């Protein structure tokens, strides 16, 4: 490694080391803030039997949805899959294992993995199918269930700006799961809209410090909008 220069210039380099059977954690919420080119590279590489961890699974033909087309995903860990017909079909046909996980629990599982916390208690899901088979314990008279962290072999992240040290900022609500995913990858790859020089980002407002980031690549993004709601003047 040449000091802290984490910038790579090809998507092949960005995803180098991805193998069949790995776990990939992806940032994004719906189609907002998804690492669209890193996902496309996974499709190009053709890695199979992946476990993918992401709040959603994209839509038919875009985002993580494209990994369903060649059945690259074996197990999907997500909170919401409502916008994806191919997903629903593979699930109902039994071609895809799906572990539905409450959104807050999913976010916390990623954060916990990055923070060296192997498990935590939450009230979320107690008394529901999500709590079945999990340890229940009362604190202050209220029941909680034990949830374990999720670590990824890769984390794929979409951000706005990064410097070569891997310091990252996100834009608006495209932040969502991205900073959490970034902490949870053995190899964390961030694709950004803009590269800046170290010192250009205010130290107080770095959303993901470079210590979590292994590779940075500048990409071009379609940024598809899922539901264009407007008001007229």
């Amino acid at each position, binding site marked *: 490694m040449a000091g802290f220069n984490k910038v790579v210039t090809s998507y092949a380099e960005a995803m180098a080391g991805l193998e069949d059977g790995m776990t990939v954690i992806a940032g994004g919420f719906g189609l907002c803030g998804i690492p669209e080119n890193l996902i496309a590279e996974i499709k190009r590489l053709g890695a199979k039997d992946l476990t993918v961890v992401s709040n959603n699974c994209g839509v038919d033909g875009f985002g993580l949805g494209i990994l369903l087309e060649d059945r690259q995903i074996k197990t999907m860990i997500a909170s919401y899959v409502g916008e994806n017909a191919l997903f629903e079909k593979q699930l109902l046909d039994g071609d895809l294992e799906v572990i539905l996980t409450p959104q807050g629990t999913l976010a916390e599982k990623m954060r916990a993995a990055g923070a060296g916390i192997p498990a935590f208690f939450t009230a979320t899901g107690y008394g*529901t199918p999500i709590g079945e088979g999990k340890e229940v314990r009362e604190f202050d008279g209220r029941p909680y269930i034990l949830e374990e962290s999720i670590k990824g072999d890769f984390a794929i992240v979409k951000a706005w700006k990064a410097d070569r040290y891997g310091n990252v900022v996100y834009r608006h*609500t495209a*932040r969502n799961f991205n900073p959490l995913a970034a902490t949870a990858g053995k190899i964390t790859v961030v694709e950004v809209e803009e590269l800046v020089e170290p010192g250009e980002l205010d130290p107080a407002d770095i959303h993901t410090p470079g210590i979590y980031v292994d590779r940075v690549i500048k990409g071009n993004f379609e940024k598809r909008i899922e539901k264009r709601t407007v008001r007229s003047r």
Partner: protein
Amino acid sequence: MALTREQMAQRVAQEIQDGSYVNLGIGIPTLVANYIPDGIEVMLQSENGLLGMGRYPYEDEVDADMINAGKETVTAIDGAAIFDSAESFAMIRGGHVDLTVLGAFEVDVNGNIASWMIPNKLVKGMGGAMDLVAGAENIICTMTHASKHGESKLLSQCELPLTGAGCIRRVLTDLAFLEIKDGAFHLLERAPGVSVEEIERLTAGKLVVPEHVPEMQLDA
């Protein structure tokens, strides 16, 4: 007459208190934002990471990076904050949101709610709903009182997989506003023109009816 979706939103909005943080679910709850009374300041929390959600954007303001939990393009008010999903659910799970309004398939007399799955038929996932019902002290559930076929959705015991156990205290349907306590639905108000008898007929769980059941007061 059963309430329209807009009227349901209007009635829920009356419950919102000045200076409160409110999370509005997808569907009817989203409409509630349009009926917040004048003079009341409310901060809307959207669980994808936005506190201080504003109106929909004008055409030239639309930004793919600025959406709400329903994946709709939105704006942020002055004084908004944007954060990651772990922080967002820290707020929710930690009990910092004052009021949550969300839809349901079924509720029951013990405050259980089912809203995320119909086995072998519909699997969309729970999204943030399980965290919201576990985290909020104060939840209003909005739903139609019965299915199109006249089957009650206010039950003795939920039949569908639960979203949360024992967490719902208030339900607004198209027919009535009810409180859940002591293992029963307590009828607080009825929709204008809807009789107590109709509500009784369409409520499968135990219903407690006081002597006088006022009609809801809605703006024309």
